């Protein structure tokens, strides 16, 4: 890189006298750079315009383009910090996701492993073979059922297959660790055009390693005999049978079943849709050979919940997305793609954008650490950063005058504490909502909604209390987050109707979850003891308990108790009825009692929601950890790449930002890039261009040296003549001068393929 950079610095004109640089280099079009002092606020485009500067800083910039980072200010010492923080945060998120997925699959994997062992034992029970028998061509004549091929059908529960590639890979690793010989085949190995030889070749390459050109099962048999002890099954995993060519797959199965006694193959096949799929693909005589078992992987929704839980709700990295982004991502998941892979990709894009756009984002690092504000105390915080921090809209909104490092640190630690608290509460809500077909992502979407909490300040407490005091009914409609019959409201309603035993379980789970939030923990304990009391003690005593409890409960409980109080009052006023009630059977009382606790639990939930769950976007300094720019994300994910490219080609000056082209506008100029010129000409001509073909031909022209062009037309720097291209080694120079164009260029090819 360095020497080429040097030549780039000297910026040689195309026609120097050197023999090697004798030929034309049309890509070297020099643009006058516009003024170098761009505003720091511009985000997306600054990076690009930087890169075409012919200054010494170019190589550095260019290197960074690879690591998908974008920077706002070059001289910012925090850029590196941010990069580092991104690395840390993303690796953490990634490993968390991996662990979560592994945990989800682990049950099924164990089951499959167990089944593989069992099937292998069944195969072995047909008798041991001598080494001669095992490698001979003729079949072993045993029972008719000995030709059965044990087949595990793994239902992946998702039409799209991307997520399960990883799952099957992991399954392979898992089975390998159990001592099986494993080969992973995909539908690409079962293409009709490569024939049965194709999948056998791939199979043998994975098992035997060496691949001769004439491949048959006898090689497998001889390899298996060569493995010494015959106590390990051979597992062949076929990722996606829907995509396989039926005839090849059925031939493969027949062949395996013919050899199954010699090579104890156990087949595992991924089924994306329903169990009808193998039936529709394979003929009946092949199905006959399969002795199949069904396994079911977690649904995409389940996995999604687990991932969301681990990444956003539990304390993972500190990074979080805003309500809008969450809405966008969940819509994208449900409507467009439905794969976890794309969700994770969206998450990564969000993460990258956040770290590239938010100057203070490096502070997230401290979030995952135990100690608060460690970074702050390093003395790294410059005045500028501090100023930026106090200029954040979330802080300005709260109008706290004092602006000091301490204040900032306190704010940060508060943010951290509240976020954790928020997470705890969300998982509590999720626990409650679990059985009710509510997805965590939907719950999260609601929990993140900032409109539910317009005036959350440090004194929100009091304000809310006032509100509560004013409101007489405890209808869900009253509380912003509980309105609209949303998911949280559903969960609350559900808790009200929960039978005692389940309520007990739920409270127990809550107790475990709220370890960190003391007050809540206490309250839950109280509820638990109450529930216990109810089960044991007489009703009369219990009534006393309740009244005691009522006295003890804080203001916050009022709403929850309103009904109860009312009832009690009614009871006092109406002694007859009360009496009758007391005389009622014990069981009825129990029902009533548990109802009481239910109401309390629901009240507790509401308390959770509006007191402990301040949406992240309402907290000061939340910009540091929260990614909000949904447009950017949308553009990155479902932006129309082809249209984008075409627009860029036509409006290249917006990207190049050179002073010479911007004035020209529509007319062609020699300083334009080749591709732009070509595209313009094609437009004038009225041609429709297949961008992909077009760029491919461009690529081939760029990458293939055409020698006859060398001696021709030294002087004409007309970039249109693309035939005379520079040699490949020159490409690196060109790519330094026009890194953007090259990156676009090669990325475009990726996008289009």
């Amino acid at each position, binding site marked *: 890189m360095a020497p080429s950079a040097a030549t780039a610095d000297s910026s040689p004109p195309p026609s120097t006298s050197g023999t090697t640089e004798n030929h034309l280099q049309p890509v070297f079009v020099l643009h006058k750079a516009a003024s170098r002092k761009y505003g720091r606020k511009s985000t997306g485009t600054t990076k690009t315009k930087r890169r075409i500067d012919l200054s010494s800083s170019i190589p550095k910039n260019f290197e960074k383009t690879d690591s998908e980072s974008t920077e706002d200010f070059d001289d910012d010492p925090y850029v590196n910090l941010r990069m580092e923080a991104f690395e840390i945060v993303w690796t953490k998120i990634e490993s968390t996701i991996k662990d979560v997925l592994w945990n989800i699959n682990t049950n099924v994997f164990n089951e499959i492993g167990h*089944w593989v062992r069992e099937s292998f034992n069944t195969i072995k029970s047909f008798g041991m073979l001598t080494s001669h028998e095992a490698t001979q*061509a003729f079949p072993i004549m045993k029972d008719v059922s000995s030709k*059965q091929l044990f087949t595990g059908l793994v239902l992946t529960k998702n*039409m799209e297959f991307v997520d399960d590639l990883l799952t099957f890979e992991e399954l392979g690793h898992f089975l390998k660790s159990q001592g099986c010989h494993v080969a992973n085949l995909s539908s690409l190995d079962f293409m009709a055009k490569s024939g049965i030889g194709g999948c056998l070749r791939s199979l043998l390459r994975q098992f035997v390693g060496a691949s*001769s050109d004439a491949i048959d099962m*006898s090689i497998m048999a001889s390899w298996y005999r060569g493995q010494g002890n015959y106590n390990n099954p051979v597992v062949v995993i076929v990722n996606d049978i829907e995509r396989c060519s039926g005839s090849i797959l059925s031939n493969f199965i027949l062949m395996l079943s013919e*050899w199954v006694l010699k090579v104890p193959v156990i087949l595992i096949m991924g089924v994306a849709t329903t169990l009808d799929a193998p039936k529709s693909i394979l003929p009946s005589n092949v199905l006959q050979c399969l002795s199949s078992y069904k396994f079911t992987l977690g649904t995409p*929704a389940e996995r999604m919940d687990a991932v969301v839980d681990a990444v956003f709700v539990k304390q993972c990295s500190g990074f979080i997305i805003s309500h809008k982004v969450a809405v966008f991502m969940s819509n994208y998941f449900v*409507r467009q793609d439905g794969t976890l892979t794309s969700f994770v990709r969206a998450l990564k894009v969000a993460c990258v954008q956040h770290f590239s756009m938010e100057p203070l984002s490096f502070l997230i690092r401290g979030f995952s650490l135990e100690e608060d504000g460690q970074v702050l105390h390093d003395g790294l915080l410059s005045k500028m950063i501090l100023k930026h921090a106090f200029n954040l809209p979330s802080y300005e909104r709260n109008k706290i005058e004092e602006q000091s490092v301490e204040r900032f640190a306190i704010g940060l630690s508060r943010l951290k504490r509240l976020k954790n608290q928020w997470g705890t509460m969300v998982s509590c809500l999720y626990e409650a909502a679990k059985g009710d077909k509510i997805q965590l992502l939907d719950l999260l979407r609601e929990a993140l909604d900032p409109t539910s909490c317009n005036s959350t300040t440090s004194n929100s407490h009091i304000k809310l209390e006032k509100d509560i005091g004013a409101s007489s009914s405890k209808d869900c409609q009253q509380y912003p987050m509980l309105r609209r019959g949303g998911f949280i409201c559903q969960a609350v309603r559900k808790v009200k109707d929960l039978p005692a035993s389940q309520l007990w379980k739920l409270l127990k789970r809550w107790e475990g979850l709220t370890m960190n939030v003391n007050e809540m923990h206490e309250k839950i304990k109280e509820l638990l003891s109450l529930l216990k009391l109810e089960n044991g003690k007489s009703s009369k005593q219990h009534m006393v308990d309740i009244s005691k409890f009522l006295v003890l409960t804080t203001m916050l409980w009022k709403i929850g108790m309103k009904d109860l109080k009312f009832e009690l009052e009614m009871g006092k006023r109406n002694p007859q009825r009360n009496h009758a009630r007391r005389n009622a059977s014990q069981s009825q009382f129990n029902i009533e009692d548990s109802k009481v606790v239910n109401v309390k639990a629901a009240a507790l939930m509401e308390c959770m929601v509006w007191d402990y769950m301040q949406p992240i976007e309402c907290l000061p300094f939340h910009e540091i950890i929260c990614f909000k720019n949904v447009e950017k994300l949308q553009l990155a994910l479902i932006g129309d790449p082809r249209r984008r490219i075409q627009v860029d080609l036509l409006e290249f000056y917006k990207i190049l930002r050179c002073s010479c082209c911007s004035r020209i506008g529509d007319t062609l100029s020699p300083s334009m890039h080749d591709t732009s010129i070509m595209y313009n000409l094609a437009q004038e001509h009225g041609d429709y261009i297949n961008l992909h073909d077009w760029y491919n031909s461009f690529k081939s022209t760029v990458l293939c040296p055409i020698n006859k062009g060398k001696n021709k037309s030294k002087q004409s720097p007309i970039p249109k003549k693309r035939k005379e291209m520079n040699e490949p080694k020159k490409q690196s120079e060109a790519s330094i001068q026009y890194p953007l164009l090259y990156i676009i260029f090669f990325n475009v090819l990726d996008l289009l393929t």
Partner: protein
Amino acid sequence: MAKDKEEVTQVNRRATRLSLSTANSTNDIEAAKSFNSQTLTLDNLVFGREPIGLDDLLSCFPGRRVQILEILHLLGTIKSSMPPMFIYGSASTGKTSIILQVFHHLRRPFVYISCLSCYSPRILFESILNQLLFHKKDAVNGYSSVKKCEKPSDFVNFIREALINVIDSLKENSKKMSSSKLKGQVNGRMIYLIFDNFDLVREWDKSSSILPLLFGLCDILKIPEVGFIFISNSSPDTYYSNTGYMEPILVYFPEYTEDDLRQIFMRNQANQKLYSSFLDVVLRPFCRVSRRLDELSTAFSTLFKKYCEPLSDLGVAPNEDMKRRLFSHIQPHIAHSLNEIFSVASQPSVESEANQETRKKGSAKKSVGSGDFDEIDFHMSTSAKYLLISAFLASRNPATLDASLFDSTGGSNSRKRKRNCNLLIKYFLLRVSEKSVERREAEEQELFMKGPGTFSLERLLAIFQCITSVGEDSFGEEGGADGVTVEGESNGLMSDVLLQLSSLCNVNFIVKGGSCPLEGSTRYRSTVSEDLALKVARSLKFPLSKYLFRR
């Protein structure tokens, strides 16, 4: 060099271990050839170790006495040559096992080639040569064949050479045997080539040249000591082999009769009486459906388990009362498994407890993004669902009806939709009055025979756009309720519709048909059952039945 030696010693060690078990004279003859032949000898061309008598052979295969005797007769004595033999009969009638056991009984050397495992001419050739030259693929020789042989002409030369060698050693072997009076392993001077699953050769690319070659190999080689046996599922008429070669002698294996099957199934049963009572119940109904031994045996093995379920002691001899009880227990399962033979052979027979539990848990946890998981048990994105429905509609409805079903604007409001329905009803009425019942029936039948119709991509996309704009209503609530206007909400579904199309093609819901000869563009066809389409529509709350055109 040193490595070579090492290998040789290794092989030697293996050979000595082996020769303990196969102490014989031929070892010495072959020893000089190559180190590979030390491990493989003429003995290896013989099936089975212990000799088997004729009576055993006949009792092994109930109902196959005639065929076995015929084959034995055709094979003749040790010295007599034989014309090619062609054994045929439907699947699972005992052809391969009987031939192998006959050779086991006769102790004659043979080369076995399954045209299933040897899936191309080259593999076939090399497999034959490997066996004749006593070559074994292993790690030492890099799993390579003894000779590279792709052309039929090479093959003929190689095989002639190899066969002459083998026959020479066979002669020597039999001389030695007669002189030393030692009862050796290998018997006779003939060597046989057995081609199993021969019908598969017809499907090879080069079958037109390979079939005459293999049928005529006997004439080409002109070695009387080589016998050819072809085993096939289909009758010889299907090979159009009348090209002047020697007609093979045919041996036909008919399907087993019910009595044969009973005898076969009664072999090796621990509790004869119990199993016999079981067969009384199941054999007759099953025989009406299929007489294939493999199909029956898989069906019976699971059924027998069911049958024995009420019994605590499996050794018990059932009396009449118990038989009746067991019958009533098994009866519901029989009907089910009778159907299964045809359609669902791959239904999971056993499901572990844990699996069921996770499934229950899964279904309980199945959550609702759009309320779909109850109906369809796999995940599809919403746009894929709409696309599936539009493909289904495009395949089911005649293209002429599209204009009346869908407005050009997409019929986004309910009023328009109502108008559409009215149009549809009018259309129906018109048709009913117009056409007689018989004609409609004939048409129905024709439609059934034709299956789902094909459609072009443009039509699919048009329908897709129409029905998504209708569907947006139910959709908007969800999106709008969040108070967020994600840009391009309405055409958000359109954005990667081609990607969705390709994934639908991948899971075989939509099949890419051949291109239309007139237009030249690719045609598609939806293969989704109406059941599934309705399920999908229900999950979207899309009124599919309104749009379906029924005759």
